[in-house]
């Protein structure tokens, strides 16, 4: 096996050297072979593939005509200095693709760095320099960068050097495809992410002032951001970049985008007629839409044998009625999550359906993962400690084990309605309350003992439940409770919520929903609702 692999790579290598010898003077970007000994040249700074005409560019981005023209205008004609440009707009509105395709159209050299990929200033700086210096990381150089660069000041100096050398080569080389120019553009994507870095504001300011600091007209700067430019300005005497706004797509534009690459346009447009309107109300991000529409379209086509037919009205109606039940669930999915267990094929979809129906019915009844009994009691105790006010603990868990607190609860619920509503709203705003560890353990002790005793009583009625005889032993088995608490913390059921400003001890907060805790209580046949304080 390994010998075979070695053989194959050797063969590849020999092929590659032959090819690279031929292409060494002018590396065409459409080199089909993976080329380990690939030496990048200045030509690599342009957008690899064949340049496209303006018409093709405009038609490939429906609804982005004015933005494209704006951008081209702001970048300006060949070799003319340009002020920094900021492209901004919501996620998935085509900012990055438009910018890159514009440069493909212009066929000018550029350097692209995304702040998502480069997650620290050092990597950002080094990635820009690497591209300018035509340096590629490989095993022979230990995957190191061309220059080590941590600080913005170093970056300015290194950038100046690198730029001048690049411009020099640009001047000397004769481009085979016409417009190449003597300028390099720097595209920095996801600029908004820099705000999250430590010393992010400093880096941002540096990036915005780079143009004026550098004083090199050979560099054009284009920043792409998810946030509007107002967010960044801080009156520090640099020229504000010129904004280009990418608005959300309209429904019609989305239709054109989705129709673009479809094999059977008529069928797909019939599908979009049905689907697009409700989905547009939820989201207009192309990315989100395309994932859910793809799976939905697959379902839409399920009854069809021939995918090339153009549907008539009758067929459309039938297909729609077939699809209808899936639409609402898919809508929800966008809103929440698309990571439903899918197998990718029909088998998985069937399973998905099953899980949907079960979510409604059965899953309410039973807990679908394993917990030890004491962990369950702890979970309930934490839930109670978060829900109930601490002042009520004494009356809830007195020596009678909370058996007579039904009356008390009723008394409490006889408060006036407005007050109740107010309190309810307040509770929603506050979220679950926090509690010290001691209170959790005290409640745990109480409910664990009550749970045991009530177990016995219910046993008499049912006579079929398991595990009674053993629970008597469990009383003196509650030793490693702290371990259980920590594992509940690990599973995100309980979170540590900082320390109390007065006492200075760590407080906890239960994060479980009422549903889950009721489920857990039911699996223990513990009367949880009896202990819940209702306002």
């Amino acid at each position, binding site marked *: 096996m390994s010998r075979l692999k070695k053989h194959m790579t050797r063969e590849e290598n020999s092929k590659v050297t032959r090819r690279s010898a031929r292409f060494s003077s002018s590396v065409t970007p459409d080199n089909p072979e993976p*080329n380990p000994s690939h030496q990048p040249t200045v030509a690599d700074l342009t957008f690899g593939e064949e340049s496209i005409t303006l018409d093709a560019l405009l038609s490939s981005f429906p609804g982005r005509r004015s933005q494209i023209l704006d951008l081209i205008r702001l970048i300006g004609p060949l070799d003319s200095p340009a002020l920094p440009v900021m492209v901004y707009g919501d996620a998935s509105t085509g900012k990055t693709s438009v910018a*890159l395709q514009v440069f493909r159209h212009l066929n000018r050299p550029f350097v692209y760095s995304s702040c998502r*990929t480069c997650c620290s200033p050092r990597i950002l700086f080094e990635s820009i320099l690497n591209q300018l210096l035509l340096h590629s990381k490989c095993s022979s150089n230990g*995957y190191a960068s061309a220059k080590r660069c941590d600080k913005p000041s170093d970056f300015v100096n290194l950038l100046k050097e690198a730029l001048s050398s690049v411009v020099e080569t640009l001047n000397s080389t004769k481009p085979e495809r016409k417009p190449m120019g003597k300028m390099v553009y720097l595209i920095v994507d996801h600029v908004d992410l820099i705000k999250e870095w430590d010393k992010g504001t400093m880096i941002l300011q540096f990036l915005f002032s780079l143009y004026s600091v550098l004083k090199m007209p050979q560099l054009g700067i284009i920043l792409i951001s998810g946030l509007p430019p107002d967010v960044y300005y801080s009156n520090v005497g640099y020229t504000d970049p010129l904004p280009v706004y990418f608005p959300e797509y309209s429904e019609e534009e989305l239709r054109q985008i989705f129709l673009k690459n479809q094999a059977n346009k008529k069928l797909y447009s019939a599908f979009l007629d049905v689907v697009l309107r409700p989905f547009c109300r939820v989201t207009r991000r192309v990315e989100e839409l395309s994932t859910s529409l793809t799976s939905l379209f697959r379902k839409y086509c399920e009854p069809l044998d021939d995918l090339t037919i153009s549907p008539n009205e009758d067929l459309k109606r039938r297909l729609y009625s077939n699809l209808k039940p899936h639409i609402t669930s898919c809508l929800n999915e966008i809103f929440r999550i698309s990571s439903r267990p899918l197998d990718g094929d029909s088998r998985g979809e069937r399973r998905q359906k099953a899980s949907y129906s079960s979510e409604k019915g059965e899953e309410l009844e039973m807990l679908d993962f394993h917990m030890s009994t004491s962990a369950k009691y702890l979970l309930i105790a934490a839930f109670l400690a978060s829900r109930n006010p601490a002042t009520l603990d004494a009356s809830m868990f007195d020596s009678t084990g909370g058996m007579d607190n039904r009356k008390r609860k009723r008394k409490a619920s006889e408060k006036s309605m407005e007050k109740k509503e107010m309190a309810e709203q307040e509770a929603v705003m506050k979220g679950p309350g926090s509690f010290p560890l001691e209170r959790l353990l005290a409640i745990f002790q109480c409910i664990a003992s009550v749970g045991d005793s009530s177990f016995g009583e219910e046993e008499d009625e049912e006579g079929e439940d398991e595990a009674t005889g*053993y629970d008597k032993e469990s009383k003196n088995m509650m030793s490693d409770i702290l371990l259980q608490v920590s594992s509940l913390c690990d599973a995100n059921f309980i979170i540590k919520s900082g320390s109390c400003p007065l006492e200075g001890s760590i407080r906890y907060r239960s994060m479980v929903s009422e549903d889950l805790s009721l489920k857990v209580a039911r699996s223990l046949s513990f009367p949880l609702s009896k202990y819940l304080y209702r306002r």
Partner: protein
Amino acid sequence: MAPSTTVADPQPSSTTDSFDSNAAAENDIRIPKLFSLCAAFDTCLVFFVAAIFVLHKASPGSKSTATVKSKRRIESPSPKIAKKSEIESAEEEDGQFFSTLRLRVFETVWSKIDKTIQDVLRDSNSKVFSGIRDWICESFESIRSSGALSLSEAVRSYPVLSQPSSKQLFTALVLTSKNLEMVDDLLTFEDLGLHLKSQGCHVAKLSSMDFSAKNGVGGCLRGLLRQFVMPTVDVADVTILASWYRESGNHKNPVVIIVDDTERCSGSVLSEFILLLSEWAVKVPIFLIMGVSTAHDAPRKILSANALQRLCATKFTLSSPAERMDAVLEAVFLKPCSGFTVSHKVALFMRSYFLCQDGTLTSFVKTLKIACLQHFSLEPLSIMLEHFCQDNQLPGEGTGLLTEATMKHAFDLPSVTRNKITRSTCEMLPQFLLDLQRMPNPWSIVVLCIYEAGKFDKLRLLDVFCETLDPEARYLKYFSPSSILNSQSNVSGRNSVIRRILRKLRKHASRSNSKLEKELKAMTDKISAVIEFMLREYMKPVETVPFNEILCFKNVDKLQSALLGDPRGRIQSDLLESHSILNCLCCSQRGTTLLPSMHDTSILYALAQEHADVINLHDWYQSFKTILIPRNSKAKSKSKTTSKSKKRKERCEEPEPPAEASIQAVMELQIAGLIRMPSKRRPDFVQRVAFKQEDQFIRQDQ
């Protein structure tokens, strides 16, 4: 684990070797010759055995204190043991020889059990593993078929502009046995990684430690690069991964990243990481395997919406802990494995420990190991298990080890005296042992039959197993037709699962009377006849068989104390009764009074008992001082110290003996977690952390 002192001690190896060769020689000799040979061998062994007898029979108390002591980690020479070792040092040496032998047998037996468990667990996972592998292969093929990238495309910094759906990241959500605790699954992911690696994938394993908010995305990316590219990488740059992936044939295989405990990861970092990887998903096809220990919607809870929509998730479910438990039980106790077994009480304890306390298979295996180790350290006859362990040998040969003294011990066993077997029936011994070896076989078959019949009720083998071990159960009574009518009156087995199954079987049989199918009726009749026969003939729990002590571990108290140390309660009660551990003469006569000769910490703790939740430091210190310094010499002390901070200052000037001691003691109490430091609001008070309730609890126990 609390290894007993006798077993754990290092041994002179020469004696062991010589004994080994003897034992090996004896294995070839058949039973008739055995006793004559034994007699010769006896004379030299009697001495050793006597020693072991003294150790185990005569002084069970001293032994238990020894184990407890090692747990407490308070080392103090017990006068009892010291005296004994003087007198019987020679015998003990010989006893150690036997204990070495038992330790050796323990190791063989345990390694066999351990191997069985490992095999069972591996089998239970293998199906899911191959499922994951197939899924990776299929998805990888689909990615590759959609078109290969050229090198310059693959390593350049800007994204490949293609369909928006290409940013999807293939993700496997592996529901790790749906258990809250992760312990069982740590090794599972290790195995999964190895399995995928052997299939040619590039595998990296990240844990929640890598996804900490402190290190951010850079931290986990660095961890990833160090595993894939080379260990010296210190720049968290994805382009390195892309360049590496394009080198020397790496791109022929998929890249797999395993995150074993998703719930524990920092959600924001994991989301960032997923977004970052999905940007590069076209250039480096990455498969993410996320271990989820609660429910499959757990990622929904921790990940951001942006990250979630990049995941193209597939669900895989590992077997649940209860299923694994049943598989392990079946392999260890019900299939011929080592011969070692546990009594009804021990099984019940282990069951409740599993259900109520821990719920992990790891701790169950640990319990089993402790039980096994204690069996070998407590039961001299346990060495014979070695012969049960090896299938091809007759157990009779094991009697070669039976010396005069062990024989005496053997015939003193409760199971032997109960069955009225005396020394006179000594010749029957090989027969008994043979029975003992053969007995578990039909019994386990009956148990498995019942389990099989109970499967429709989702019955657990664990429950069936625990009940069938009960030596006092009357199964036939459950099964008899009359018991169905007045089943409620039968109080003893009210919650018996077996009764339920048998009743159902019988009902099934009676119901078919009304039906037309005669055949079915005949069949159910036959079935019930068979079951009745099986129950009557073979349903003999191991504890009813003579000499079962050789196989069966019974001491549930020992197991419980070894497993549930209750360290907090222990510390508190020991602090109150420190003289019983220190065994000093000066404090032995104290009743309820506190003596100055007692340990400072324990005096302070005893004094703290008199206070409520908060303790006034001043009062506490004063009462401490009055105990240490009798009233008449008190005139010397002048300054009153109130808070601890003040005391510290004072220590530099003129250290007052009780003050210094009290600082030390308070500090120790604080470290032990029994009191909490004074807060800023009330600098004169410390808080008691221990609960009243817990205190009462401990006192009840004592």
